[in-house]
């Protein structure tokens, strides 16, 4: 047994090219050689395994080392950021500068608004934004601030994303032991969207015309249960001891720790649940299905699983409309919810299909123009009403 040869073969360029399928000649050469010497196939295979494993391990280690070096740089940056506190003088300068900038900006806006080209675009229809209301257990309903986009519930206080208080001690007014049964409801109107963080850290994003009913606390419960109407994107904190369940009008989704999107609008023909990461069990229709990442369950009378087009399913959350071979009817329903408009059909073919991507923050006329470019449809805007024609 000559140990020198072991190292030699792994150093040989043509053999390595064969192991990693890098060029046809070397792969061809070695495969032909193996055909002529089949008794060595297993042994060569093992050497190939070794080479491949070595390649992967060394890459992981290189990447890890490089990232650790980057992490150190990030720590330095974060520390510098924390140390930057403005002095009194610079604070006043900052305020003065902002004020002047604000004046200039107002003048600019005033001039722009009065220019003739803008008169044409002026319309009452405005795109959606961060609108929602929150109902508390004691009966109060709070309209949430549009500057913030999310709320966090912890320890029975509700705060905005930046920590400012919305309501404190919501369990207090009832003063008895089953506080866990107290529920909150977050509702978005047409043209609204909002995000909420639940007591266990789970985050939920709500699309327009949707609502989420959830308890004040998950403590001493056997499960984490919430109820959704409309559309929501979930990022559930993993907790094997406490399963997370989402209930909609047609389905129940059981979750351990994952990311998924649920579309359960009552004016859509079926409800759709799409899994991005993790595992969920969807019960609805007349049975239940276990989803894998990248799959979507469609629930109407029955329940079916198919591959999802992730881009279009999650597009709302990224501020876009991505239409993927979608009927005009379905597209107009999405537009109606986000822009809070009414849709009337006059002769247009509702089943005609369209595809494309457009920003949700564009003016509705721009979105409609994009559809018009296909020459399959025409639109007219009258106040808050959109008329769809052939």
């Amino acid at each position, binding site marked *: 047994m000559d140990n020198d040869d072991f190292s*030699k*073969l792994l150093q040989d360029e043509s053999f390595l090219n064969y192991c990693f399928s890098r060029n046809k000649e070397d792969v061809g050469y070695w495969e032909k050689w193996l055909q002529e010497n089949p008794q060595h196939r297993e042994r060569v295979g*093992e050497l190939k395994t070794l*080479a491949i494993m070595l390649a992967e391990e*060394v890459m992981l280690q290189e990447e890890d080392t490089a990232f650790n*070096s*980057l992490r150190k740089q990030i720590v330095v940056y974060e520390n510098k950021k924390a140390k930057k506190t403005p002095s009194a003088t610079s604070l006043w300068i900052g305020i003065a500068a902002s004020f002047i900038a604000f004046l200039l900006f107002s003048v600019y806006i005033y001039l722009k608004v009065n220019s003739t080209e803008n008169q044409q675009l002026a319309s009452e229809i405005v795109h959606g934004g961060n609108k929602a209301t929150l109902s508390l257990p004691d009966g109060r309903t709070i309209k949430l601030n549009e500057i913030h986009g999310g709320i966090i519930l912890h320890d029975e206080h509700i705060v905005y994303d930046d920590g400012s208080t919305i309501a404190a001690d919501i369990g207090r007014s009832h003063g008895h032991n089953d506080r866990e049964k107290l529920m909150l409801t977050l509702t978005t109107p047409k043209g609204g969207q909002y995000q909420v963080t639940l007591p266990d850290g789970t985050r939920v994003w709500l699309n327009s015309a949707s609502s989420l009913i959830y308890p004040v606390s998950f403590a001493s419960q056997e499960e984490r249960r919430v109820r959704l109407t409309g559309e929501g994107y979930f990022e559930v904190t993993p907790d094997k001891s406490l399963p997370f369940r989402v209930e909609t009008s047609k389905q129940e989704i059981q979750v351990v720790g994952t990311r998924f999107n649920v579309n359960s609008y009552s004016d859509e023909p079926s409800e759709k649940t799409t899994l991005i990461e993790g595992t969920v069990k969807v019960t609805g229709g007349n049975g239940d299905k276990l989803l894998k990442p990248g799959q979507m369950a469609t629930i109407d009378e029955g329940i079916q699983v198919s591959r999802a087009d992730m881009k279009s399913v999650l597009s709302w959350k990224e501020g876009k409309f991505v239409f993927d071979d979608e009927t005009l009817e379905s597209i107009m329903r999405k537009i109606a919810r986000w822009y809070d408009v009414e849709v009337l059909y006059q002769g247009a073919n509702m089943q005609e299909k369209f595809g494309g991507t457009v920003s949700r923050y564009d003016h509705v006329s721009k979105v409609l123009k994009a559809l018009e470019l296909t020459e399959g449809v025409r639109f007219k805007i009258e106040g808050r009403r959109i008329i769809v024609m052939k």
Partner: protein
Amino acid sequence: MGGNFKNGKDMDVQWNTFVQTMDEKSYREIYSHYYRYLSFIGFKKNFSPARIKDCINDLFLYLWENGYKLGAVRNHHNYIVTGFLRKLFRTESLDSHNTVELEEELFDLPITPSVEMQVIQKDIQSDIKRIVKRFVKELPVRQRQMIYQKFYIGLSYQEISKANNVSINTVYSTIYTALDKLRKLIGKEQLAVLSMVLGAIVILFFFFLKNHS
């Protein structure tokens, strides 16, 4: 994970999560994914390992500092690759046209080893994997870098000598030293299967010599 790194579709969810929430886990996943691809590009363009690592890390530091502003980036893959190439070539004049050309020149990275693993026997796999992991962890940086360049990236001995600015003989001997260490580690464990492999190498070696001289 497949071998096609060209469009970055794999990282869509992570990019969006990172940009909206500055999530560390997503950031790390994006880094892992692009480290391989960008270092591959860098090596194929004959840059040194130090330079490549610095450019990748500078780029990602920038992404970390400005993540929350990047929501408007339409194509994160092009954004990252263009950013990297700009730093690498130290030029601001790289437009998207150049990037596409540059990318098309480059081969796809070979299919990552994990895919091929499934075909191989389980017993051998776990034992060898353990040895290889330990071996790589204890490898001195220089040797590890060259093994990375030879085995994972697939550079020729000539290319490695240029990229690391050493003689080709230094490359041969550095790689030999590392592989020899690995051989000894495996020998120590006395795996029956690999001992058979070593025995068969004699035949392979002579045959190889015979056909390549």
